């Protein structure tokens, strides 16, 4: 049980760090827009970062587009 004499002050230090981070986040306006990031992760903005050999080619123009999954790469 004497380990608690180490653990509790340790947890207090961690709480202090957590508080500092929280205060920084509020100052840095991290809480201003809570809806935006939820949407922006769904967009494929990083297509240009996929190496050429891994890219899925789009079907040719005169093919009928079928599922969303087939024309969309992951």
């Amino acid at each position: 049980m004497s380990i608690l004499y180490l653990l509790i002050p340790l947890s207090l230090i961690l709480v202090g760090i957590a508080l500092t981070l929280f205060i920084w986040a509020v100052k840095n306006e991290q809480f201003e827009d809570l809806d935006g990031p939820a949407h922006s992760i769904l967009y494929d903005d990083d297509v240009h970062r996929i190496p050429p050999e891994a890219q899925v080619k789009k079907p040719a123009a005169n093919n009928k587009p079928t599922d969303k999954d087939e024309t969309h790469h992951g």
Partner: protein
Amino acid sequence: MDNTLCFHCSDLLPPGPAIISQVDGEPRHFCCLGCKAVSDTIINEGLEQFYQQRSAPTITPQPIDDATREGYALYDSDSLQGPLVHYRDDGALETQLMVEGLTCAACIWLIERHLERQPGVQSIRINHSTQRARVVWTAGEIALSQILLAIRELGFHASPFQPSDWEQQMQAAQKKALTRIGIAGLGSMQAMMLAYPLSFGLTTGTDDSLIQLFRWASWLIATPVVLYSAMPFLQAALRDLRVRHLTMDVPVSLAIFGGYIASAWITVAGGEEVYFESVCMFTFFLGLGRFLEMRGRYRAGLAGASLLNAMPQTARLQLGDTERLVPAQTLKPGDTINLRPGDSVPADGTIIAGSSALDESMLTGEYLPVTRSSGERVCAGTVNSESPLQIRVDQAGQHTRLSAIMRILDQAQQEKPRTAIMADQVARYFVAAVLLAATITFATWLLLEPSRAFAITLAVLVVTCPCALSLATPTALTAATSALRAQGFLPTRGTTLEGLSTIDTLVFDKTGTLTEGRLSLRGLTPLGDMARAQCLALAAGLERHSEHPVAHAFRELESAPLTEVRNQPGQGITGQMEGRRYAIGSAAFVADRCQLGDPDPEPDDGSLTIYLATEGQWLARLALDDHLRPDALSTLRTLKQRGYQLIMASGDQSPHVARVAGQLPLDQSYSGQSPEDKLALVKALEARGHQVMMIGDGLNDLPVLAGARLSVAVAGASDIARLKADAMLLGETLTPLVTALTLAPRTRRVIRQNITLSLLYNATTLPLAMMGLIPPWLAAIGMSASSVVVVLNALRLGRTRVSAPVATAPRYSTEPLSLSEPGL
């Protein structure tokens, strides 16, 4: 994919030649060239993901004409840029923009990606909840007007604005409040963790020093919570006591600070229990309630505050040979100002040169433009639509008719009754009861068992925590407001939701509220041999070169190419095609230009009739009027079914009023009403005991908007109307009214339930606490449980989906419509 809706904006496709473009390899149909242009831009930039990701129909882009470009160019002038644009330390320029027309997250993504491609733009970030954009760009590489135009290219309208002092203060206050509850929340969790072994006897059989460790640690954690997060309560309590006002802050501060000091004392001097975790949780829940309240007010106020900063009125002052852009406030009687087509008139005056059609609907309600020429008067606030004019200022600034109306408005607003908030009334009695109970407890236990007296009194104060009570109203209001906002109804004041449940009469304005507020083509009757489609194309081709409001009805149609187009302001237009001369306009004008006799007489039904003819032959009769909004009929039917009294009061004097009234299930209808008449009407209704909601759009409704119990401004309303109204409709539809009127009584019920629940909890636990049966951990659990129940109950409001049937009617029709056909 069905071929009856525009691929871009989901409007019904007009008859006539199809406008098609290739999207992702498939041909898609568009309702107008504007939509096609935006779609082409999107494809060219590789942003087709937009169409796959969007979750709501996109706004139909308005055509960009020279007037729009000039309007944006004004933002590049130094006098306007000064307050709006901010110079950053690294030399870049930054500004905040309000963006209109955003319907879903995909729109935001689209604008951000499109803008990032513009050379000179460093970054653009649009906030999803406030719809404000922050743009950073390099000076010299791109101008602010170009940035605004780039956004406009996609169909969205953006305007720079400067946050008012109020807003900046509120933002800072919000951040502070968030920090406070963050500290309180983290502290509560830690304190609870440390209180667990103490409360549940896990420390029996171990060193006393272990208990001391827990207590000291709890004290350390509770200190910032009490001294920072709970300070506002103490300050409010002291302030209220000084004025001899009993508010909830008094017992709350007693409990928090009393508990803290007592527990600190016990930690040092030894004793039974410490209450640090209760104190922290107290602070957290109460702080949460206040924070939600403040956030609700802030969000509501945001909508209004941004309108205050809409583009300042400017005027083109003619000094000798030069023209200068000056603020409208600096105009004096006798000044000469120039008005271009599309400008709004900045001051009352007399026309000294030029002749043009003016849109006076915001002052008079008449939707047909009025032609005015040299010697006639014009009023501030009206819009010059057709040709340039030169005006001599007669009255400016405070002395215009517009300002007079605003003053009536301010006065009427001050007399508006304010309903007392339910919770405030309850709170007063509650506080008195709590303090009384605490005093009795203390006195009694002092006689029975003095050592426990303080602890038990503390338990009483903690257990009767008004956490649940303070959360009861704000959570319900917040949930209801978010639900309403998502459905297109935005309350701008705290008292709006409450007032909604008492309404029994609705008064509607006509122009711009029940109708769309602009001229559209209602029907075309061929009078000669030419086919309808041909007539339409000819008409569109002739009207392309005009700025008259009539011409706007033809903007989105495919037009035949005409040459030598000549415009006679207020009368009509002539042009040539393949050697033949065509004319469109009033019957007299066309008869004169094409050497024709009178056409067949048509019934005067209040619509604007123009004729199309060629040399020697009448070709077509076109009827234009202000269409009803597509869902006006269904909305009013639903409201009628629910038992509301429906009244229309319009400033328009023409037969159009009677025709609109005939198409809608109204109880009463009034025409030719001045703003003062409308206000008298509302006051008469209220004198008879009715609670009136006024729905309107413009300046001619302002005094009424202020005088009615509740006022709602429609989406296209003037900025001032939106500012002064109690609520705003966000979309082009009237159905949010039904949603709001349904949700309001439900909200009231939930608030009542919440208050009952919290009072019940307090009533049952109070006697138990007074008898000394409630240990601190039980008090803490009870506090949190009651708060959670109240919040969950309020969240039920967010789940309501009220859908009223929306009938979409085709906007274009080439059949002459009979008067008996409803809803169109």
